């Protein structure tokens, strides 16, 4: 009897829905409190006006959510660590793919079917 065809869509959609529902409670937007509106010492020191040749890191407040945090925090160990983790993951993926390809080629060579290895 032929094995039923594996459909991975359900394996992607169900965990995605579960994770979304479980995380949605964390996504509550809060209004600024009095403590947020108080001036911070770092804000008083940092130059606020954007002008030509001002280094990017000195221009904005940290984590202002404008989408260029990585450039503003370039060199920050927190972000460098994330980059290293991702690069290590990619490295593992490449090694795994190369090992799979090597195994496949070896198997094809053994079976005398190396044309499309």
């Amino acid at each position, binding site marked *: 009897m032929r094995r039923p*065809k594996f459909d*991975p*869509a359900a394996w*992607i*959609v169900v965990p*995605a829905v579960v*994770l979304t529902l*479980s*995380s949605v409670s*964390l*996504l*509550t937007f809060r209004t600024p409190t009095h403590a947020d509106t108080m001036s911070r010492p770092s804000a008083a020191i940092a130059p606020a006006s*954007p002008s*030509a*040749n*001002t*280094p*990017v890191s000195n*221009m904005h407040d940290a*984590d202002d*959510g*404008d*989408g*260029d*945090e*990585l*450039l503003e925090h*370039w060199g920050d160990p927190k*972000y460098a660590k*994330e*980059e290293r*983790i*991702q*690069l290590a*993951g*990619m490295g593992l*993926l*490449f090694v795994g*793919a190369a090992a*799979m390809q090597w195994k496949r080629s070896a198997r094809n060579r053994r079976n005398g079917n190396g*044309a*499309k290895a």
Partner: protein
Amino acid sequence: MQALRNIGIIGRITMLEGARKQVFHVLLMVAVVMIFGSTVLAHFDDKVQAKMLADLSLASMFFVSAAIAITITVTGVPGEMEQKTVYPVLAKAVTRSQFVLGKFAGAMGTVAIGMAVMALAFVFVEWWFLAGHIDFAVLYVVPFLFLETAILAAISLALSTVCSWPLAWFLSVIVCLVGNVKFQLYASLMAKHPTPFNKIAISGFYHVLPSLESFNFKDALVHHLTVPNVYLWQTALYGLCYTAAMLTLASISFRRREL
């Protein structure tokens, strides 16, 4: 050499096919209208107008390029399988990996055509509305937008090999949006004291999602701020590595797929 030729042929056909699609023409028209429309919004004094023009135009360029890349790549492989045109191709001396790479190259070719048209429209708008003053430094960001789009296209392609194209399209759009606010979202979610399960899930997604924010330095260029050269090289290398990783996944997944 034969492999490159195969990828080139599939890529050329995919590019021409993509450039003939109605969705490509419509999206391109939307982008050009948005670029010209930014002149209506940017009606302040000269310097602010130039910055707003550049900012709005580059943002439109990114969103439309991403939409073109995602739409073309998610429908590429499933479309070929639906029309059964993939079988004669794979029956020849073309491996599945070459087919996937060809599809990606073709989609990126179409995106390149689109980006070239949008960049020309942007340069024309700057020249026309700012009395011949063109800020060529801003165009520095275009190759990086292309690289960011390549990451999204590679993700869409990988997703389209495991699920139906509407689902792949939806997930790709989510990745595009979340990838652009990844660090901020992570910090905000972690600050809410999540449960251990949530922590693991959030960290997992955080490490897997692409850091698209690293390509977002158009604000710095628009405001004529210094962006370190090493940062640009590092970002380019990261983009290339992430694209290669996603293409590897797409190849493995398509190779294992029952046709």
